[in-house]
């Protein structure tokens, strides 16, 4: 029997309905649906209060963190605490992200303006999403003890990864995600081992363990500079289909003196950045690097160093990097 109790009660009622409903078979949905689903899950991650234990797996290595997230008065606060490996504490507030490395006595500070990607997907991006990924929704089994629905984004070409997301159907909170390559290998996986949604969050759960940085610590300002929107004069000749440019300009990169051109392309689900800077011999070597699902490829182009970064297969990132050139005047 349903009373008009308010938000928590609606959640309970909705949850009971979800339990009763049957998602028997994968359903294929229209092109707006995938974008809507992503938006909902994004909003949930931002606007709910929750705590939990998170495991991140990248190939053979894994990391475990305690996580606490709060949304109050329209603002997000979040803290991640490493449970193994080198001690790390990441604290996110409305204006910055701080990385504390207590073993090394270093704190890294990044000014951060949260860019909300999904609600601002343009109609073109939404169409690309549907055109280049097949979207399927089906029951996802249990994650962190909760029944989930699984959303699969299967790429229609070999230039992208497959994305799988498991979310709590009632609250929309993402509980697990995976990046899978064309060989069916899991490149990266993120999952809650246990989670408490609508948890009561105490202030100290989302604030740094240090009210002031100790004197013997080193403070590193590590953020990239603000982007100055501009036509940079660079272009990508061999962009994978479905990617459109969503940002372009110059910015200062962390630890570097000269501003770099930064172009960003998106297919609706994945973003790829192209950086162009003056080439200097003291820079890191060209070639491929990878951190979990993120691949980076750098190459030299005359007096410039071109770097491409994105959640895409290395071959895709390399192809893009090798096709970056000066724009030819029309």
């Amino acid at each position, binding site marked *: 029997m349903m009373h008009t109790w308010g938000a928590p009660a609606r959640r309970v009622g909705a949850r009971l309905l979800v339990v009763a409903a049957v998602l028997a078979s994968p359903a294929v949905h229209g092109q707006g649906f995938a974008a809507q689903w992503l938006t909902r899950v994004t909003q949930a991650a931002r606007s709910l209060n929750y705590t939990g234990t998170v495991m991140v797996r990248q190939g053979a290595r894994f990391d475990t963190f305690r996580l606490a997230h709060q949304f109050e008065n329209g603002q997000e606060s979040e803290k991640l605490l490493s449970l193994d490996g080198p001690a790390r504490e990441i604290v996110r507030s409305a204006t910055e992200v701080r990385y504390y490395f207590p*073993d090394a006595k270093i704190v890294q500070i990044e000014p951060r303006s949260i860019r909300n990607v999904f609600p601002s997907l343009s109609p073109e991006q939404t169409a690309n999403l549907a055109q280049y990924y097949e979207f399927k929704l089906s029951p996802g089994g249990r994650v962190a003890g909760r029944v989930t629905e699984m959303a699969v984004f299967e790429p229609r070409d070999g230039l992208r990864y497959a994305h799988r997301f498991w979310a709590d159907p009632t609250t929309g909170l993402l509980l697990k995600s995976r990046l899978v390559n064309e060989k069916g290998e899991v490149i990266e996986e*993120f999952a809650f081992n246990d989670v408490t949604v609508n948890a009561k969050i105490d202030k100290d759960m989302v604030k740094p363990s240090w009210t002031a940085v100790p004197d013997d610590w080193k403070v590193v300002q590590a953020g990239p500079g603000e982007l100055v929107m501009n036509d940079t004069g660079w272009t990508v000749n061999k962009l994978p289909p479905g990617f459109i440019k969503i940002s372009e300009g110059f910015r200062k990169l962390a630890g570097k003196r000269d501003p770099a051109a930064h172009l960003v392309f998106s297919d609706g689900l994945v973003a790829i950045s192209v950086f162009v800077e003056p080439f200097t011999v003291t820079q890191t070597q060209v070639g491929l*690097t990878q951190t979990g699902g993120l691949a980076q490829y750098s190459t030299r182009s005359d007096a410039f160093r071109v770097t491409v970064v994105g959640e895409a297969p290395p071959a895709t990132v390399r192809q893009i990097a090798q096709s970056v050139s000066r724009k030819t005047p029309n």
Partner: protein
Amino acid sequence: MNENISRLMDGEVEDVEFERCVAELKSAEAMRTWMCYHVIGDHLRGGYGMSPKFSLSLSQALAAEPTVLAPPPRRVTQPATFAWAVAATLAAVTVVGWTAFSMIEVPPTAVARARDAASVRAAQVKPTGDVPAEYLLAHQEYSPAFAIQGGGPYLRAATATAAPDAAPSAEPRQ
């Protein structure tokens, strides 16, 4: 009595009742109820079952342990250092063997210097390491995964820019 066990496990007891409730738990039957109620909760959340041998084996091992006696803990509101006190009792070092995933020195310019090469190397098929921090940091705010996973992708940045190992220190707060 069992209702007190139910309240105690939910933390819904006043301070003054706590001692009495714990005292009631000393009987074998009460312990069984404590465990039984927890088994219920764990299974509702998709629990993992331990075999019957586990409880027996562990309780025997615990019984054999010298009783721990510690001075009353100082309730510290702001830790002076972020110490991993347990590291003293753990045999192997967490860092050894895991250097592959965490050892890029901060700040990024130090990374560049460390990897300095005079000549341009041919394109590699296999990754040579982690994505350099300066690109990762500039890119991640545009990444949809970033938006959808909340704090998850920050873990990449923390993994990539984790500072070198140092002597272990105190516990974190959470």
